[in-house]
């Protein structure tokens, strides 16, 4: 009893005490992440100084920016000696930067609509959770986009589409039999359809017609997007075919593919654009004249497909040989084993690489400004900077161009990283 009174025994647990000030919250974080050692502290100070000096340099320039002016001189008068940007050029020349300077302004809705529809068409390809039915639109989209951007009668893309459709349908119908018969029949039927369609078009070429915009009127960022999208979408099948050809055990096929891939990868894109600009025309029949934009698309497709072929080859090589042997032992022929066993796995591995190459392609479309096409960079370097109104406005224009490309390319590369995580199966 007396023991009980003299000694003190706590009957309940003490509540946890908060950690010392230095061991919690912002302080702990700062100590561990910013000032953990002398060297680290120096680095932090240097970084803060770098950020500070960039901010001090750029912020006034950015926030003092003039958005309403007609010329550089007017801009400077408004600024009155204060350090500031002249964003008015972006405002005034916005249509030129986006659509080029000869695209008819009444038709701007067409490329806009085509871009929105492009996103719709790409959605089922990019996000596999969406219903597969949407892929129908993806198949129709190229023909629709052609009609929207270049204009003319809707009959031309319709006939082209119907021809392709009938050709594919024919191939599907006869592909259970001999391969050669199916291909021949499908080619003949498609050609027949195009041939008959030609009469239809010449009979009524104003049906549902949009104003025709020739290729040379395309420009600005629209041209970059156009070249990038077409070259990338054409080069993926070509690249896969080249990769398969390079893996083939038929020596002639293999060597054709190897020489093509190594040649294209060995030269800079700019020389291929020179070819498109000055040489390619020599290789077409004398009476034809092919658009420069089409020649550029051909060369860019070749260029990109060689790089995609290397990515896909990496994917093919990464598959364990057991997969090939399993496909063979199931009695599948070459095309079946590729379509059902090898390619689905190889492409899955190579998708991030393909996306990276494609982002690179989109960035490389700016090179067309060197062969004097007026893409976004070409517009800035050509008509805008050399105009008397906007002489010497480098930063705002190139900054805007960089920002546009950054937004697009950064989004795509983030998507690629997301996809990489989504596709990570069988590792755990």
């Amino acid at each position, binding site marked *: 009893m007396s023991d009980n009174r003299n000694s003190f025994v706590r009957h309940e647990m003490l509540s946890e005490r908060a950690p010392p000030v230095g061991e919690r919250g912002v302080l702990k974080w700062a100590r561990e992440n910013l000032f953990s050692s002398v060297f680290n502290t120096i680095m932090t100070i240097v970084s803060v100084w770098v950020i500070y000096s960039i901010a001090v340099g750029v912020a006034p320039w950015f926030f003092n920016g003039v958005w309403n002016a007609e010329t550089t001189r007017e801009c400077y008068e408004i600024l009155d000696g204060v350090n500031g940007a002249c964003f008015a050029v972006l405002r005034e020349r916005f249509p030129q930067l986006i659509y080029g300077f000869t695209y008819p302004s009444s038709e701007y809705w067409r490329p806009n609509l085509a871009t929105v529809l492009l996103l719709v068409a790409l959605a089922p390809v990019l996000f596999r959770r969406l219903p597969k039915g949407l892929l129908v639109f993806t198949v129709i989209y190229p023909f629709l986009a052609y009609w929207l951007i270049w204009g003319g009668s809707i009959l031309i893309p319709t006939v082209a589409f119907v021809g392709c459709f009938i050709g594919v349908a024919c191939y599907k119908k006869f592909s259970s039999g001999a391969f050669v018969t199916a291909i021949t029949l499908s080619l003949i039927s498609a050609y027949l359809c195009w041939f008959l369609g030609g009469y239809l078009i010449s009979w009524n070429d104003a049906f549902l017609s949009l104003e025709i915009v020739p290729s040379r009127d395309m420009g600005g960022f629209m041209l970059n997007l156009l070249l990038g999208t077409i070259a990338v979408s054409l080069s993926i099948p070509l690249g896969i075919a080249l990769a398969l050809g390079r893996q083939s055990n038929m020596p002639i096929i293999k060597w054709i593919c190897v020489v093509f891939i190594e040649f294209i*990868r060995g030269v800079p894109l700019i*020389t291929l654009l020179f070819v498109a600009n000055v040489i390619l025309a020599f290789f077409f029949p*004398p009476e034809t004249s092919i658009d420069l934009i089409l020649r550029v698309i051909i060369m860019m497709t070749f260029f990109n497909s060689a790089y995609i072929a290397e990515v896909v080859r990496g994917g093919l090589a990464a598959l364990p040989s057991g997969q090939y042997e399993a496909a063979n032992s199931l009695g599948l022929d070459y095309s079946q084993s590729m379509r059902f066993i090898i390619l689905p796995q190889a492409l899955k591995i190579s998708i991030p690489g393909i996306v990276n190459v494609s982002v690179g392609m989109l960035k490389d479309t700016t090179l067309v400004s060197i062969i004097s096409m007026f893409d976004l*960079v070409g517009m800035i370097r050509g008509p805008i900077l050399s105009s008397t109104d906007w002489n010497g406005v480098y930063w705002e224009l190139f900054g805007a161009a960089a920002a546009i490309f950054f937004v697009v390319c950064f989004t795509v590369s983030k998507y690629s990283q997301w996809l990489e995580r989504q596709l990570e199966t069988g590792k755990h």
Partner: protein
Amino acid sequence: MSTSQISRRDNFQLSMLLNDKRYRSYTFQFFALIILICIMAYLGKNLLENLAAAGLNISYSFLGEASGYDINQRLIEYNSQSTHLRAAFVGVLNTLLVAFLGCIMATIFGVTAGILRLSNNWIVAKLMMIYVEIFRNVPVLIWILIIHSVFLTILPQPKAFRGENPEASMLWDAFAFTGRGIYIPKPVFYDGSLIVIATFILSIIGVFAFRNYSRKKLYDTGQLIETRWTSVVIFFVPTLLVYFVMGNPIGLEYPELKGFNFKGGIYARGSLISLWFALSIYTGAFIAEVVRAGIQSVNQGQSEAAGALGLRSNLVMNLVILPQALRVIVPPLISFYLNITKNSSLALAVGYMDITGTLGGITLNQTGRAIEAVLLLMLFYLVISLSISAIMNVYNRSIMLKER
């Protein structure tokens, strides 16, 4: 029954070319070859017809003619009376110069940024991430143009260096950074400088020999010899000694302001500097990612094991992490070097006279020999790329051998 089947299989029939797997590949290749030849013949026929119609022919004789244009940045003697071939050669050297400088600088940027991105300093890591993302996602052409205009607008013109109270002044009276280019002192070699250079090379060999010797001694006897300070002494002392004994045979020629421009020293044009810087900082962002991936690819257990063996952190990096990371880093690194070489053809945008600017630019426009010029241009780049990929294959094989 069975014998007849066997004999039937051995009898070659025409339909087997299509239906028998053994022969089908021959048919297929045969047709592929025929198609290829047809395409080539068709293109060749068009080419000949077009050339005949335009009154042209394929001839390389233009290479021997006087070029008639000047090249402002050159490594070898050249004037407007020189031939187109020599102009092309000046261009080749300029391409190789900017590619070489670019590779070194890009490696420095890339390795620094890649290591700093893994730093446990939050703000540094974030800064490096911003650098990498910004530079990777904007076309290199835009970077070249931006950096070129930075160069032109921010750096002072030579005239700013003139007068009593000049707006700009030279760094240590030796380096002048102007909007037209950068001037740095140029070493001048007098009599006896050869001996100094020879001593210098010998002392470098000496340092390596000494390090080899001390390592051998360590492995054989376990005796550790101090190497750091001895190396420094071997590196500097003999050269300096000979330099003063010979009576300062190597001097520096400083750039000086004469009239409206600088004279003397080594002059690097603004276009070279901006192209060099733009290519290296752009490619550096890619290299940073490769370096980061390479370091991260080394298993965490490796550095823990090295730590458990009692190695200090810099030794862990040098002896354990880097040798393994290099296997992952080097192959893509070399392909980025190749990219720098190919991207240096964008020199056209800033007016730097590389091979694309001379042979593919002015020569092509002056002579109208588009096919020949572009073919030669492609041949040059092909030779460079194929030789670099050959070196890369040799390297890959050499690191494959060590794997067990």
